[in-house]
């Protein structure tokens, strides 16, 4: 039954191939993609259930024993993130038909979409560093395909920067893997971890660790490497922005989380202290970026960065509570970022502009949209009882327990500023004089149909917050599990 785990990566790959053949039959490909996504969602849920009852699934591909073949490690953390990915994907695939132009749909949107899911899921599941690189390339290549889809002027310009930066960091990634391989003679994460701990992470290993950090931090958009992020994220179609905002940086964060809890835990005084400082700077500079603009899409894009700071904070503090906070925040952020990008997509669509200064009184015509946005703002700012609060609370608890006052204060300040940056959209865009008619009355029908996937995402965030009791215990176990890398090693390498 453990082969089902591979199916969570292979199924989207197959879906990508199948949908590529139907690129000219729009209706068919839409329905097909929606069905495929739902099947995958169901599949992942089944695997999650299996893992939660029977424990971690180790899949040795080609039946070559670890550490020699590539292993997929289906632990609770990985599979939970795969599930979240698929939830986000499902929301996006139902939002897509109304949001995309027909041309975009017929030029392989759905294939790229499935490859992205495949790459992201693979990156979460793999237990092999080089394989992680390959999945990074899969998801990046899919993202290149998605970001250029449409061929707009600004779109191509920003895509170019996006591709170049990622290309550079990919090359740094393989080189760093090679360095590590030279020292420890393995690319299997469990074995690498075992060997690094055996020699107490001496000599060059910490330096290599920092190179890994920079590779992942570039993808995750940690200070001071996030410059490339905001603009490329707003040029493509909203549904693409949503996928990017929800998934791409999170893969980077996940990799840091994995590598710096499993492998490089020997010099935490140095590495993790650096993370704490970087986390604080990431939060503050990110939210400053969000306050700097009147473009609503850009505001949301910038708000990715402080969230990354919050997650880094937990990794830096490095305690059970803080890591649980990071995981909770990660799950929450995937869902809420998708919802927000989809929301601002609709807002810009119905308003006919993404410039906040040109909007006014939208709530009188689009009350549901307005209240959804309001709730999403609260979730993002971490107001209880929504899901953002749970993660934030754990992070603050973890931070105060270790007396990391500075980063806790930074997190509180940035929470306030996040709220400010988002509520501006509500106050200036939604409130105001009632206009006689909405700016584009003909668009309200499509807008309404695009709203309900968001409703699903928002109910999940509410559920994650109000019903935290159903989820938190298992997240807490994940935090505990991350603090004990030996469990991971033992499950992969059986002797």
């Amino acid at each position, binding site marked *: 039954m453990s082969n089902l785990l591979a199916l969570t990566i292979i199924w989207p*790959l197959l879906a*990508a191939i199948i949908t590529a053949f139907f690129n000219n039959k729009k209706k068919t490909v839409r329905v097909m993609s929606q069905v495929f996504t739902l099947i995958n969602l169901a599949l992942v849920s089944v695997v999650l259930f299996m893992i939660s009852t029977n424990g971690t699934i180790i899949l040795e591909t*080609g039946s070559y024993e670890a550490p020699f*073949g590539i292993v997929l490690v289906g632990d609770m953390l990985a599979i939970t993130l795969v599930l979240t990915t698929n939830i986000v994907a499902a929301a996006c695939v139902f939002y897509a038909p109304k949001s995309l132009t027909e041309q975009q749909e017929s*030029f*392989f949107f759905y*294939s790229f979409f499935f*490859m992205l899911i495949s*790459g992201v899921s693979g990156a979460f599941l793999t237990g092999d560093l*080089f394989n992680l690189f*390959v999945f990074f*390339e*899969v998801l990046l*290549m*899919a993202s*290149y*395909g998605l970001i*250029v889809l*449409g*061929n*707009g*002027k600004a779109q191509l310009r920003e895509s170019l920067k996006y591709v*170049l930066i990622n290309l*550079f960091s990919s090359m740094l990634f393989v080189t760093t893997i090679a*360095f590590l391989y*030279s*020292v420890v*003679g*393995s690319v299997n994460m469990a074995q690498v971890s075992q*060997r690094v701990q055996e020699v107490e992470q001496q000599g*060059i*290993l*910490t330096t*290599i660790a*920092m190179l890994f950090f*920079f590779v992942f931090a570039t993808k995750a958009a940690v200070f*001071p490497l996030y*410059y490339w992020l905001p603009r490329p994220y707003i040029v493509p179609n909203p549904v693409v922005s949503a996928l990017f905002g929800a998934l791409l940086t999170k893969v980077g964060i996940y990799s840091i989380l994995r590598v710096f809890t499993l492998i490089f835990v020997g010099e935490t005084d*140095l590495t993790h202290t650096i993370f704490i400082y970087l986390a604080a700077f990431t939060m503050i500079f990110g939210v*400053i*970026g*969000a306050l*700097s603009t009147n473009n609503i899409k850009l505001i949301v894009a910038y708000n990715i960065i402080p969230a990354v700071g919050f997650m880094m904070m937990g990794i830096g503090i490095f305690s059970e509570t803080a890591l649980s906070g990071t995981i909770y925040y990660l799950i929450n952020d995937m869902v809420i970022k998708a919802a927000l990008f989809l929301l601002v997509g609709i807002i810009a669509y119905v308003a006919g502009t993404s410039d906040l200064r040109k909007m006014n009184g939208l*709530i009188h015509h689009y009350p549901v949209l307005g209240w959804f946005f309001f709730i999403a703002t609260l979730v993002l700012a971490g*107001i209880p009882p929504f899901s953002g609060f749970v993660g934030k*609370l754990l992070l603050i*608890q973890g931070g*105060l327990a270790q007396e990391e*006052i500075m980063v*806790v*204060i930074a997190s*509180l300040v940035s*929470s306030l500023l996040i*709220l*400010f940056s988002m*509520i*501006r959209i509500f106050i*200036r865009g939604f409130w*105001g004089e009632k206009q006689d008619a909405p700016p584009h009355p003909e668009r309200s029908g499509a807008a309404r149909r695009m709203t309900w996937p968001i409703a699903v995402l928002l109910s999940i965030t509410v559920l994650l917050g109000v019903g*935290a009791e159903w989820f938190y215990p298992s997240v807490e176990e994940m935090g505990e599990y991350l603090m004990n890398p030996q469990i991971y090693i033992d499950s992969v390498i059986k002797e």
Partner: protein
Amino acid sequence: MLLAVLLPFIIAIFIPFLSKWKHKLHTGFFVTAVPVVIFIYFARFIGPGFEPVEREYSWIPSLDMNFLFYLDGLSLLFILLISGIGSLVAFYSIYYLHKSEQLGHFYVYFLLFMGSMLGIVLSDNVYVLYTFWEFTSLSSFLLIGFWNHREGSRYGALKSMLITVFGGLSLLGGLVFMSGITGTASIQEMMSQQELILNHDFFPLILTLILLGAFTKSAQFPFHIWLPDAMEAPTPVSAYLHSATMVKAGIFLVARFLPMLSVSEWFFIIVSAVGIATLCWGSYMAVRQTDLKGILAFSTISQLGMIMAMLGFGTKAAIFAAVFHILNHATFKGSLFMIAGIVDHETGSRDIRKLGGLMTFLPITATLAVIASFSMAGVPFPFLNGFYSKEMFFDAAVTMDLSVTGIAATLQTLFPYLAVLGSIFTFVYSMYFFFGTFRGKANIDELPKKPHEAPVGMLVSPAILVLGVIIIGLFPDLINKPFIEHAASAAYGSENVKDIYYWHGLSPAFIMSITVLVFGTILYLSIPKWASIYNAVPGRLSLNTFYDGLVERTERYSTIITNSYMNGSLGRYVRLILVAIVVVTFGTMALTGGFTLDFGNLSEVTLHEVLIAVVMVIAAIGTIIAKNRIAAILILGVVGYGLAMLFVLYRAPDLALTQLIVETVTVALFLLVFYHLPNLEPHNESSLTKTMNLIISVGFGLLMTMVAISAHSHKMFDSMSSYFVDNSYKLGGGDNIVNVILVDFRGLDTLFEIAVLGIAAMAIFALIRLRGKNKEE
């Protein structure tokens, strides 16, 4: 009890469905029932034999977030205020808000607020308390923005939200800190381990965080500035949230933690100084206002300051007076707000310069107003409750005898004088409010509407409150034994009982009251003579200017900071990223002593390899200095072919073949693409840029080389590759080990590598073929 707190939330969910019937029956009627029910439910706890009640309902036990309710005298006092005034305000709003307004929204926010407020005062669990705390800020935000087509409403809503959420977040920090130290989320249990908190290194920080939360919510100086702007909300809201209940949440919080925090001398210094400052500043500024609600807003600020100051004193008498005044203030200020609403409703104006002489037109309202405002002024009549608590305040200030030194001692001597000063202005604005509105010359023509007495329904609520003023004044014992005493004891931490008398003899407090009366009258009569003082203090240097500047600067400097580095220049981004990588990684290498050089484990140096390397280096540099695009591309090809030759020499035949093919195709592609693009331009950047680029690239290259050398010198384990050599034929059935690894041992890599190529092909196809209309152009 859980149901009582959740009732407003539950009803709120159903409010939107009521909108169908709203034209037949005002939604307010349904809503009024909610606080009435809650009031009745809790009123049964009143009585001399009251004992605290505790109830626990689980919510998120794994996070220690449970509905742990603790009903003591203090919470009971607040609950009765919330539900009692809530009922009156809801009833009043039926007449105040016309059916054509968005009543559904209004009542949803209203109920959200009421539920959250009940939650605050009942929660013993700090996280749940914080949850409700933020919800009151949010519902206040929505209520202030109820008439959001007005600029002022939006401004006020944002201001109140920013300030109160700022406070909320610091409160969260303080609460989490305390629960971390004591290992519990229950306030009662925290207080039972108060030494842990009081002796903690970070106690000053904790105190600051908690007090910031309380001060922002209760509009204490200098955070009071949101309250006057909150007056944009409909008047029932002002009466309810911004005078009787929400702004007292901060007071409640301080009172809740009082038994623990007041042990610290800093608590006394900060809280009482801030309270007195707020009292004086608020009452001083109230006289300057021209909007009726503006006067009341500043008056609320000053009264809250007075209560806060009393809590800061921390003495038995002061706390008793504070608790008593919480109740009294709610009665007279609630009614005054409703009166201001009536005036506004019936005349169409709240500008005191246009109003005047309304006594003849609104006689009942005027009667209510005179009682309420005289009670607020503390005029010594036995039927005005304001006088009782005001005199207790004086008494507490004079008799306060804390054994303190330093600043605290100075403050202690100053306080009685400041208390009198603040109260003089309180007297002045009370008179100003009443006489300015109801006496003097009437100029009806200037008013938007012809004034007449308000409908009975609208008068009921203020009348009940004024009745309360009188009853408490005449029969203080009626409420003292059954519940003021319990509230005071809860806030004090042990029994705090006192008899309330009208006449104490010629005590210092009474003399102070008389002083206030005399000087207040003189000052009131001579307002025109000294009003110009407001041009000097605060003059133009107001806190509002500061706030506006702060908000505006936050946005402006954010823009400046962000644009200074996020300028869209790829070169800039790469430079910044590389500098970070080089500096931090080199730093790490230096700190951990990572660099090692081991000449022991090297293969021999041969001439032809060195030659190839030299050619490759020259070619690589050649790509930089090449002036012609074709030349540059071909030189790049030289590097690629050189690499292929190295692959041959280093026994990697498959790599060499692949590299040759890939390089050839790539060069062809390069030529194809760049043939259509402009030729290379000479390097014309400044020498500074050139040097910088050089330093960065050399630094990065050096870093990689050094890490590579160290990594090579540091081989600590045997490679896993021996497995592949041993098993290539046995398990993979092939002689070419590299191929077997690719297609078998690491087949998953190859599968997805092919997938990458496939996506690339599709993306390129889409790039070339998709010529959509460029929407943004």
